[in-house]
């Protein structure tokens, strides 16, 4: 093999400077082209499979519901109407849910990120006595937990049922995120820096708040984004811990409208069939619009967030 290629090297004309690139054998070049074409085709199909349903939702959300029923909407919206969106913006449940979600997201993210950063920094310090044992306490909870029922009972015993705390506290610290933050600190904060700061009389608090945090902006951004996305999208804690629907976050409101109504409304027949069918179609239209409205904020922020998430994946992989 190597003998053959070296012959090609010698025969390759016009390459006197720089690394010598052998001309691949014809068979391999053909094989590579097949590989490239296949890879590109598979990826293009995957992109299509991801994008088309989302694109369809968007065009369906502004299309005449009758056209959707008749199967006329494929590539372009048909009979443009904004009725779905108008209904959403007139729906107080949505606005209320959105307000709650914003509140839960801001508070939950603030609690989670500050707890994780402080805890992870302490755990990253090799000179903290008992570090290994304390870390173990956290890691154990990744592999075994008390389960849904006892978590519910604990939250109930704490008197947190139906309060904002039940939504923001029970899932506040993910051990996985703690590990990511810890390894970030371990890899980016040199020991010499801390020793120098201590020589100058900086306490651990001072060093952490004045030096470590300003040096950890990428990590802080990543943690904020992880938690904003998670809080924005979560519904289950609200489902089990809240029973007052004025406190429901957007996702729970969406669930009740998008999913629950689909099952229950099929049983309720009021008025004549004609108007019922029309109402049904408007309801469908509203669903499309609702999917668009609720996913749009994160989708718009995505290109901005991507850089940080990719970095985060790398920190996680380094672990």
């Amino acid at each position, binding site marked *: 093999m190597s003998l053959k290629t070296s012959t090609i090297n010698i025969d390759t004309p016009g390459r006197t400077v720089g690394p010598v690139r052998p001309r691949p054998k014809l068979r391999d070049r053909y094989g590579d082209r097949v590989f490239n074409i296949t890879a590109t085709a598979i*990826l293009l199909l995957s992109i299509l499979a991801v994008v088309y349903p989302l694109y369809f939702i968007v065009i369906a959300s502004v299309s005449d519901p009758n056209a959707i029923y008749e199967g006329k909407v494929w590539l372009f919206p048909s009979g443009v109407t904004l009725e779905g969106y108008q209904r959403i913006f007139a729906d107080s449940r949505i606005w209320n849910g959105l307000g709650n979600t914003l509140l839960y997201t801001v508070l939950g993210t603030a609690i989670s990120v500050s707890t994780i950063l402080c805890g992870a920094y302490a755990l990253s310090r090799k000179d903290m006595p008992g570090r290994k044992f304390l870390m173990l306490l956290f890691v154990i909870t990744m592999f075994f937990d008390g389960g849904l029922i006892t978590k519910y009972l604990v939250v109930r015993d704490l008197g947190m049922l139906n309060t904002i705390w039940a939504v923001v506290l029970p899932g506040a610290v993910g051990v996985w995120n703690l590990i990511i933050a810890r390894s970030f600190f371990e890899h980016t904060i040199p020991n010499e820096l801390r020793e120098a700061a201590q020589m100058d009389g900086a306490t651990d608090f001072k060093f952490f708040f004045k030096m470590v945090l300003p040096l950890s902006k990428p990590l802080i951004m990543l943690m904020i984004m992880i938690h904003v996305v998670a809080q924005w999208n979560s519904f*289950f804690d609200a489902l089990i811990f809240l029973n007052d629907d004025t406190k429901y976050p957007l996702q729970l409101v969406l669930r009740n409208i998008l999913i629950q109504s689909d099952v229950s409304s099929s049983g309720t027949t009021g008025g004549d069939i004609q108007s019922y069918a029309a109402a049904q179609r408007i309801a469908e239209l509203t669903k*499309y619009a609702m999917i668009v409205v*609720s996913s749009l904020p994160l989708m718009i922020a995505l290109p901005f967030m991507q850089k940080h998430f990719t970095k985060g*994946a790398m920190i996680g992989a380094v672990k």
Partner: protein
Amino acid sequence: MSRTIPAQRRLPAAAPLPQRRISSSLRLKRILRAWQLYVLLTPALIYIIVFKYWPMYGVQIAFKNYNPAKGFMDSPWVGLTHFIRFVNSYQFGQVVGNTLWIAVLGLLVAFPIPIILALLVNQLQSERFKKFTQTVLYSPAFISTVVVVGIMFVVLSPRSGLVNNAIQLAGGEPIFFMGSAEWFRPIYVISDVWQNAGFSMIVYLAALAGIDPALHDAAKVDGASKLQRVRHIDLPGIMPVITVLFILAIGSLLNVGFEKALLMQTPLNLSNSEIIQTYVYHAGLQQAQFSYSAAIGLFNSVLNLALLLFFNTVARRANQATLW
């Protein structure tokens, strides 16, 4: 070291203490010196004690008849009654079977796809197309489970859904996907791939970026084709990451997807969509059978832990065998 001494009165470098003689008083001194670190750790520690270890302590109600007035500790013991009741109940086979079905199916289908995607994306020539593919494929990860299931309901709707419109266009009969038990598993797994494959791909891409390009250059010189390089350089290069992620996937095998399964449930597909955790939710929180459902939850956790330990041992053995 000189933290407690003001900077002006700093002493000349003190001789390091001999390492051998770590007395208990020195140890105490070290602990006291680190008090601010413990303060930083305290919120996180309180969190896991209250929301992780307290529930773990409460798991004892699986062996008791939980009485809200008496709490975790003082409720009367009943031994394995709840476990026996669960194993003998008519749902046992169905619920455990459904859980294993979607877990194994998910692992077989959803685990390899991100790896394949990453290997393909990594080989793309154009940086821009690479980036574009990455962004598009992982965007669904940012859509909430509620909305993904909502999309299923509208896109798969028997009357107006996209898929059924296509089926009818091709001359077929519309299918009530969300209302049929046999479609639950395929829809569950496909939607899982749709939503998460791109995001899982990122980790593998990061690992692929860490592979020494010299290996590829050397293989090129030796006339290796792209496919050969993917198989013999890229794949072995990310094998450690694959193993770790596989063990982690096993570790959460019986816990993932619970929310989606719950959201996808309709009275018509319940025979395939009721998994252990949704059953715990229904029996425990909706019917307030706390001890019984805690026992089922514990059954699930223990099963899960056993799987994790088993596969971890297998992986360790295999690694030792292939280390050279």
